[in-house]
């Protein structure tokens, strides 16, 4: 299979999950797609390195997290004043939106390192060791951050109702 085809297939199969990971890690949906696009363009340049990596998914997520981190370092002129305020999403429009809001609000209360661990471990489905490599920390740190994050979510009032309706 040619490099181009391999890359295209990878992107087609991972695009949605990568974009949603970025949103769950705190990006707004439009910015998330830009971050993923940039991360994949970076991977395109060194695609041979990505496929040689032990785990291409972990590799691409590491690039994505770096892109998101770099974007937060942008200078003040990276933010533009808007003539109109963005539309406010009402939490009670539908049950699905309420759930989505509750979960994302709860994630938003966590420190970023904890949120990243939760998303990589339980949404992207990486192992502790893979997550540790992506974040550049030890597996022990991943374990303790995940435990702290889970405890914080348990105590989050907005998630009580949601958790009770999900099989444990």
């Amino acid at each position, binding site marked *: 299979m040619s490099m181009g085809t391999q890359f295209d297939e990878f992107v087609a199969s991972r695009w949605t999950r990568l974009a949603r990971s970025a949103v*769950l890690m705190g990006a707004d949906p439009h910015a998330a797609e830009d971050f993923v696009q940039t991360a994949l363009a970076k991977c395109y340049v060194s695609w041979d390195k990505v496929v040689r990596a032990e785990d291409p998914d972990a590799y691409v997520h590491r690039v994505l997290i770096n892109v998101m981190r770099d974007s937060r370092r942008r200078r003040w002129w990276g933010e533009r004043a808007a003539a109109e305020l963005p539309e406010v999403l009402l939490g009670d429009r539908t049950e699905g939106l309420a759930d989505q809001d509750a979960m994302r609000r709860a994630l938003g209360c966590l420190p970023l390192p904890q949120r990243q661990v939760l998303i990589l471990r339980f949404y992207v489905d990486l192992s502790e060791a893979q997550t540790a490599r992506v974040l550049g920390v030890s597996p022990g740190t991943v374990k303790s951050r995940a435990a702290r994050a889970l405890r914080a979510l348990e105590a989050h009032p907005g998630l009580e109702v949601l958790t009770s309706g999900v099989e444990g």
Partner: protein
Amino acid sequence: MSERQLRTLLERSASTIPTGQPPMPMIERMGRRRGRRRLVGAMGAAVCVIGLGTTLAFRVSSNEGEATLTPAEELVAIDLPTSGWRPGEGGDGAVIEGVLQLDAEGCVYLGGLPGSDASQRMPVVWPAEYSAAVVDGVATLFDADGNPVATEGDRIRMGGGFSAGVSDHRCAAGEVAYVQSDVENLDD
């Protein structure tokens, strides 16, 4: 909350996040541009080692007193108007943005962003020690450290101000954008 419950809730929440189709051509174009820039960086470093101005690097010819640039090898220097402004110094707060362009006279300028007036043309005075070169037919802008920051066709954004008469450079006549920040590449 169990790990299983968390997985279910994350999956449920994620499924409500709208996503579009991957913009494959854009991703590959960005990727190729990055690769080219990396190559340019390596070439730039090599040129620095050898020494700018040696016979290996450039051949600049003259036409009726005006410098015009003729490709010698694959890399041709561009005469770039620069100021004495350096990162860390104070500056104006206007947003300067546009598409990096090179005209037939060898002048780098900012063209209008996609969707805006395509005929827009803004000459630019760049920070101290910025430089530019045509590499394989593509104009490339380098920062003060010699790192490639943008190539022709890239959308870029900077801070600074607009003024007239700040430079007597032939490429900075009339009102110019006076850059007082690093260059942010919006296509990077």
